[in-house]
């Protein structure tokens, strides 16, 4: 893809154009495929989630080779009558409770990439991490009998690539809230009828 040839600045500029063209937050966050070496974080924008669950299919396929909702490591909770959809996924906490609570030290942090990982060979399947996770993002795989959770596909998360509405974004860890800030800025400027971009 040509996006590999683009500089980051140019890419972000193009991205902002995209924004304005459709006057909405649709299709803006396809950073997957860019070879940025820096540390990045997964951010979830609930407002954009349409509840389609494609991320769950992509996840279960990438991790287990089948399409399944229970084998996914990201979950979309849906309140159907209020049409509210909440993606639940490991936040890779800076001070991760699961890591602290693990009795056998199976949970560790890859400092370079900023990913919290589970060493399946050491995991005893005790569920401590599952109970303590404030998001409910850890589950026990009953076939493998170990705890499983999102590992950000080793730095190239598949769910982000398939999330066309852009509810899942994988952005620079230096200033992860930038995209969110720009969204607000554009919305406000539109409300004030200012020409920006």
């Amino acid at each position, binding site marked *: 893809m040509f996006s590999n040839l683009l500089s980051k600045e140019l890419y972000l500029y193009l991205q902002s154009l995209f924004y304005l063209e*459709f006057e*909405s937050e*649709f*299709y803006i966050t396809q950073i997957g495929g860019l070879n940025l070496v820096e540390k990045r974080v997964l951010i979830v924008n609930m*407002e954009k989630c*349409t*509840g*389609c*669950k*494609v991320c769950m*299919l*992509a996840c*279960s*396929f990438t991790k*287990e*080779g*089948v*399409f*399944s*909702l*229970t*084998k996914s490591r990201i979950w979309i*909770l*849906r*309140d*159907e*009558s*209020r*049409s*509210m*959809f909440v993606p639940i996924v490991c936040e890779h906490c800076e001070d991760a409770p699961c890591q602290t609570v693990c009795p056998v030290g199976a949970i560790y942090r890859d400092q370079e990439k900023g990913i919290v990982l589970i060493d399946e060979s050491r995991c005893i399947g005790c569920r401590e991490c599952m109970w303590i996770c404030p998001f409910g993002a850890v589950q026990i795989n009953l076939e493998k009998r170990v705890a499983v959770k999102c590992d950000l596909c080793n730095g190239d998360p598949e769910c982000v*690539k*398939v999330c*066309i*509405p852009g509810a899942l974004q994988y952005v620079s860890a230096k200033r992860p809230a930038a995209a969110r800030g720009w969204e607000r800025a554009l919305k406000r400027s539109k409300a004030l009828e200012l020409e920006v971009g």
Partner: protein
Amino acid sequence: MYGWVGKILYVDLSKGKTWVEPLKEELCKKFLGNRGINAKILWDLVKPGIDPLGPENVMIFGTGPLTGTTAPSSGRVTVTFKSPVTNLYFKTNVGGHFGAELKFAGYDHLVVLGASKKPVYIWIDDDHVEIRDASHLWGKDVRETDKMIKEEIGDKDIITVCCGPAGENLVYFASIMVSVYNAAGRGSGGAVMGSKKLKAIAVRGSGQVEVKEPEKFYELALEVRRKLSQDSGAISLHLYGTSGSVAAVNELHAFPTRNWQLGHTDKIEYLTGQYLVEKGYLVRSVACFGCSIGCHRYVMVKGGKYAGTFTGGPEYETMSALGSGPEVYNTEAVIKANELCNILGLDTISTGDVIQWAMESYERGVLTKEDTEGIDLRFGNEEALIELIKKIAYTEGKLGNLLADGLKRATEKVGKDSWKWAMFNAKGLEQSRVDTRVAKAYSLAFAVNPRGPDHLHTETFAEFGASPEAVELIEKLTGDKKWASPYYTEYRPEIVRWHEDCYAVTEALGICVFTSTAAYAVNPANMAEMFTYATGIKMTEEEIMFAGRRIVTLEKCFNVREGADRKLDNLPWRMMHEPAPTGPGKGLVNSPEELNAMLDRYYELHEWDKKTSWPYKETLIKLGLEDVAKELEKLGRLPKATAKK
């Protein structure tokens, strides 16, 4: 099995029994899945002439080989039954999350037989299937039913399908509601559920779907998804929903207004998807399972008279049926009316058509204030619209009872030529909201539709030539770009035939027709390839389209077996006899002569008999429908003449 999970779940409500049968591969190869296999099961299980509201009727929920995979928009379910409205074959296709959940629970199809004596609901939890008491749910609206079942089971993530009070009261246009706001609206499936005393179906699936060639399939599906995400039609659908095209159709003067007296309104602004966004009614774009388009709406009214209203929709059809049709141009009132239809379980298209007919009858003095029990039923009266929706759903009073029977039966009771301004055709179904006088392929597609006059069996969107892809397709089908205009009658049968096959294949695979016949991003070649990678059964583009034609023909044969013939392939009187009053297509009409000429060519293309519209024996044998031919022959419903060699 790959693609399919290989099981059919049977639930007999009369005997209180459930069992599982394997899905035969031969059936899969011939009818693909979903709508196709549903049609075959219905053909096998339903005897001709039965009462659609009796225990002999069968209700089938079907998923397809691509359901639950990353194929674009793979959450569609087809519900098939014999309709009480038409007494004919009926399938209704719906999104939401039920299909995928059913497949993950381990079933390709769910067949509901018999009828229960007391209200029940079916609870499917993987291998555990249970018929549970639903006395406490009877009478509850759709939202309450969904909530109560989720609380009772103790899992907020299960998916429900249910009918509302309208279904329980056997209203002739009661819908089946899936995932709360997705409606399998047409044909009164809700009343079939009501007649079986089946209030709801709840499902939870923890299984999986495997495909034959995972890597290839995943790559291809992703590529098709990307193509779809760049399609202008798909982007517009995401941003503004189906009602985003309201203004354009209004410009063509094809947007039915004032009970189809007009095709254009000056107050269109308030009914557009763009207005919903601008004024902040739209809270979120909502997607069915596995869909990257997300055309469904969720709206809320925060202030004013209708404060506190929230619902899925309103869609294009609803904007016309409950907006321009009764001339209610208050967006908030339309949203309120839509909410009521959704939670009471009514089809918005037919509800609108019925109420507008009553309004025109009132205007003409055919219905008096005595008949309406004091309601001032003039056009534009939003209170009357909202009041009537409730009356219909609960079959309250004289007017509620009259209208709940649908236009065919209501006009028979009222008489006085009132059928002339009632928008239903010989099959008995109310027409969906396109003025077919100024869209000729639509008119043919509506007339031959085995369900009745609507766009949900074959939608020939390409004839408008609204996108480069559409024009290209018309050129491919007819040999010349110039035919991409809705005012021509030439080549319409060819256009309808292609769309019929394509529509059938799309639905049979379990994906959404918006990907293939509204956006044209997914073509038959893509579908054949996805099918091959998913199931391991090799199929070319031609072969898969041939399977589509087999499905369409089988559906036709069901109606032939019920006694249908060419006389039923027509349009509402107003479309056939009153010329379009304004606009670029002013003066056009779907005259009997015009329609007959198109029908002749259409039957010829299908190799069906022109006189009766029945398929020839040779045609059926060529399609591999020998058993169908044999049964029709026994009943004397094969044409006397034989196909020309």
